[in-house]
């Protein structure tokens, strides 16, 4: 694999007496898609917040391109090329695709007048880069007219425009239909092909299994499993593993059934 973009070593985060994360190791290399899976309360959102610098870890080490970083913050995270795309909340839906991509970073000439043609050109290039080509929509289309998957595309394009090396997608396929999920996958593969990395967080193990090169399963603030795609044969394997982790003795009912089956 390529360059190591970010590495977390033994990250702990406690809120008072409660441990949200109890010593997590996680790394993302250039050009790979890492799938982060875990139940509600496993610590996924705390981990994302630490990566994006919004929350500071209680202890642990953060390395950017193999160099330890002190004073980790949201600004440091942005400088390291990490962008988080939150489901649905990130876009201004009454504005055009162009205005969303350049939100807060408008391309201007003297006195703040917009370079409209340049923005359209850039937007077209970005959308082409992530494979968002359409005969129905133009850069002038209102985001509210787009489907859920296409909106994710706009958010991803915006993250790329912000020079992101690692894009964190927080539950990008939740509440999307199959065809919409396929669109998001298409964007994600294009981003990987362009040499950028993605941390894909999902509830739906099938979705994460289809897209990720590597899986990290979080459980109660710890990494329960970190494995390569080649080592996992099917999504069912992952699901079984997660059930084992969640219920170490097996679910009472299931366990009995299995024993009876064996006899």
């Amino acid at each position, binding site marked *: 694999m390529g360059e190591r973009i970010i590495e977390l070593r033994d990250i702990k985060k406690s809120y008072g007496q409660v441990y949200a994360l109890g010593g997590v190791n996680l790394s993302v290399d250039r050009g790979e898609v890492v799938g982060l899976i875990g139940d509600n309360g496993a610590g996924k959102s705390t981990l994302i917040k630490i990566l994006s610098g919004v929350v500071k870890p209680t202890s642990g080490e953060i390395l950017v391109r193999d160099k330890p970083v002190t004073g980790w913050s949201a600004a440091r995270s942005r400088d390291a090329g990490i962008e988080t795309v939150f489901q649905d909340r990130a876009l201004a839906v*009454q504005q055009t695709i162009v*205005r969303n991509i350049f939100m807060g970073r408008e391309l*201007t000439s003297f006195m703040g007048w*917009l370079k409209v043609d340049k923005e359209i*050109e850039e937007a*077209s290039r970005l959308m082409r880069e992530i494979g968002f080509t359409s*005969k129905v929509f*133009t850069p002038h289309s209102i*985001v509210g*007219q787009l489907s859920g998957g296409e909106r994710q595309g706009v958010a991803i394009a915006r993250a790329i425009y912000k020079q992101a090396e690692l894009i964190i997608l927080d539950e990008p396929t939740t509440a999307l239909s199959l065809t919409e999920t396929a669109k998001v996958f298409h964007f994600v593969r294009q981003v990987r092909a362009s040499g950028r990395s993605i941390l894909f967080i999902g509830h739906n193990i099938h979705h994460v299994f289809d897209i990720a090169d590597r899986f990290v399963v979080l459980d109660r603030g710890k990494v329960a499993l970190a494995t390569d795609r080649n080592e996992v044969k099917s999504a069912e394997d992952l699901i079984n593993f997660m059930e084992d982790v969640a219920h170490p003795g097996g679910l009472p009912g299931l366990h009995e059934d299995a024993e009876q089956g064996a006899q």
Partner: protein
Amino acid sequence: MSKAMEPDLQTPLGTASGKVAKGPAKEWSHPSNHWLRGFVLDNRASLGTLAVFIVMMAVFMIANPTVFTTWYLYSSVLTTLPVALFVVVPLVFVVTCGEIDLSFPATMGFASWVFALVVQAGYDPFIGIAAALLTGTLLGFLVGSLVVYGGLSSLIATLGMNFLLRGLIQIINEGRSTALTGLADSSAYKIFSSQVWGIPVQVFWAIAFVVFSALLYNRHRFGAQVKVVGDNPDSARQMGIDVKWVRVKVFVFVGIGAAIAGTFSVMINFTWWPTAGDGYLLPVLASVFVGGTPTWGGIGTVVGGAIGAVTVSFIQTGVVAAGLSGFYVQFFNGLIIILSLLGHKWNQARYR
């Protein structure tokens, strides 16, 4: 629904336009992407307002053709209309930003009071105008800071500021007006308030202001950020926009517009009254919404607001000139507002 229309739009005009297939955006182009169709869709709110205005004028003209073909009628409307335009346009920015400003009548009165004081003290009216603009800017900043940094509801806070500032003017002046008879000889008057080819010159200043503001709204970072902040402030904040400062700036813009409007109204009348600006509150608000700017923020139209102001100022003159008694004015005001709102609701999709 668009499928049936595409061939008609594409064949006769498509080749002539040349704008469609231009540039790197090739894979985006679509038959419905014709410039005329795009123009209509992009400007449907202001075009709808224009349609309302044309229908209204047609009704008036049919009711009384002789009066509505005389220039005098238009000349009288054109004298007062520019004053309204200078506040309607900044208010479109405020409403787009998801706020409202009801304090502009008092700002008009206050800034024009400063203008009157400076002129009365014997200074050149240009200095008076500069002083009025400065006053308007400061009052706008004060109102904006109160709303934004004080975290107050703009509806209530600006209403309060309107009463407060007007009260201050009344307390100090005790109802006395200020006559500025020497104003007519000044060069400032010739530039800002005389007539060119029989047209009040402030019309040209107002048109220039509307054009500049429309560019500011559609082609400038300020307009882009105002729209984004009104649309989704959380997202704007995440993307590094100083949401609070953008909000303050729209109130400052209203303050500046109100100062210009107040100064113009004093120059037209040669007199400053302590009530200057009061009569503009409701017609100006009505103009913004008749113009097609919705109440929920994020979108709006400057040109639509301007046409809305023209519509509203013609209702009063038109109803009386059409031969109806003055008692009909309010009824028609209300009718036009309600019909416009229904039209815009049908015309605009609201995205969530």
